[in-house]
């Protein structure tokens, strides 16, 4: 239980900094955009659409984030990463709000970030959002991130994390993760 003392100390910080904020909400948003997703470190929490907003309320800095999946275990890590980074910049009076509306969607991942996913070996979400065809098991046109073949087979609807499914390429034989549309 005491394996991560730094974070525990940080979470129990209640002392309010007397310094006036000398950094704008926009600048903080840009700063926090450096934080990588803990599970897919090639894209950051802004590109993924998890980081939603930064607000100054007097001397309190409120950071708004939204989960990809309800039970995403990375959210707690992201919250800690935000507090650590802001503390390094002298901003200690921080509140991280978890909001559920509007619900996160893979539509928020832009083309540039999708390309980073592909280069990392994860097939990015195809088409948009979720549809009822999913229930009927309609095939999607996925490409193997290694060789671009469309000759792929789903191994499991649930991959290494809730947001991914596991596929195999029938041409190059490599298994790969697919970032599911939601």
């Amino acid at each position, binding site marked *: 239980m005491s394996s991560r003392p730094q974070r525990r100390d940080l979470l129990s910080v209640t002392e309010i900094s007397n310094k006036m904020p000398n950094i704008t909400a926009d600048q903080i948003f840009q700063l926090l955009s450096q934080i990588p997703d803990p599970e897919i470190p090639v894209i950051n929490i802004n590109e993924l659409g998890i980081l939603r907003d930064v607000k100054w309320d007097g001397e309190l800095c409120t950071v708004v984030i939204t989960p990809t*999946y309800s*039970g995403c275990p990375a959210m707690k890590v992201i919250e800690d990463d935000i507090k650590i980074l802001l503390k390094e910049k002298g901003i200690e009076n921080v509140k991280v709000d978890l909001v559920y509306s509007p619900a996160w969607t893979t539509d928020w991942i832009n083309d540039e970030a999708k390309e980073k996913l592909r280069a990392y070996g994860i097939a990015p979400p195809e088409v948009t959002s979720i549809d009822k065809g999913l229930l009927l098991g309609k095939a999607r046109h996925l490409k193997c991130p290694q060789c671009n073949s469309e000759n792929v087979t789903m191994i*499991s609807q649930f991959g290494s994390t809730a947001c991914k499914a596991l596929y195999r390429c029938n041409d190059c034989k490599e298994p790969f993760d697919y970032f599911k549309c939601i």
Partner: protein
Amino acid sequence: MTTQEAKFQYLLRLGDSNLIIGHRLSEWCGAGPILEEDIALINIALDFVGNATALLGYAATVEGNGRTEDDLAYLRNEREFRNLLITEQPNGDYASTITRQFLYDVYTFYLYEALKSSKDETIAALAVKSHKEVTYHLRHTTEWMYRLGDGTAESHERMQNAINDLWMFTGEMFDMDEVDQILIKEGIAPDLNNIKSQWETHVKRVIAEATLQIPTYNFKQKGSKEGKHSEHLGFLLAEMQSVHRAFPGAKW
């Protein structure tokens, strides 16, 4: 009963059902029949527990007595839980787990679809989120209904036994009381009669396509809305709550 009291009870019903079925699924961790299924069930369990955290957190806010989602999950006794009876039924064999999940997934698929237009903004927002996840859960369990129902003689027999055993717990999913009546009037909750007809049509179709039969008996187990549970919940809570009760206020 005030609207606030009704809403608190309603959120306990939604949140407790997800918490308990999520905990049940977590019991498969490291014991799944194949690695992919082990991973799938634990991902689904995480969705349920995450969703329960949000629902019970909102329940605590609505109640306004300073309790948190952790207090509600770990410091209530069996008779205070409002989860549906089907969610606490033991995992049994894989046929039982898949059948329990399927019957509940179809229910939540239509329930959360309806709750997306709840006049309570928080409930509506959580329903939008959950419905996306439930769609994947339902796809997963539906595939297994076909695979095991229309599989070998043994898998077919086990599936039919599971349906026969679990069917008696499905009736109470659609029971309505004063809580529902108040919230239906306020536009916060849907009329469960509508959910029932959608559920029946969907479940009957899949069960028939999986070459299985709906049981003919009409016997129905009920009581979860008043906190009356089957003998299984007490054991589940004893395990789920033991660490929190042994080390009150523990954090890590």
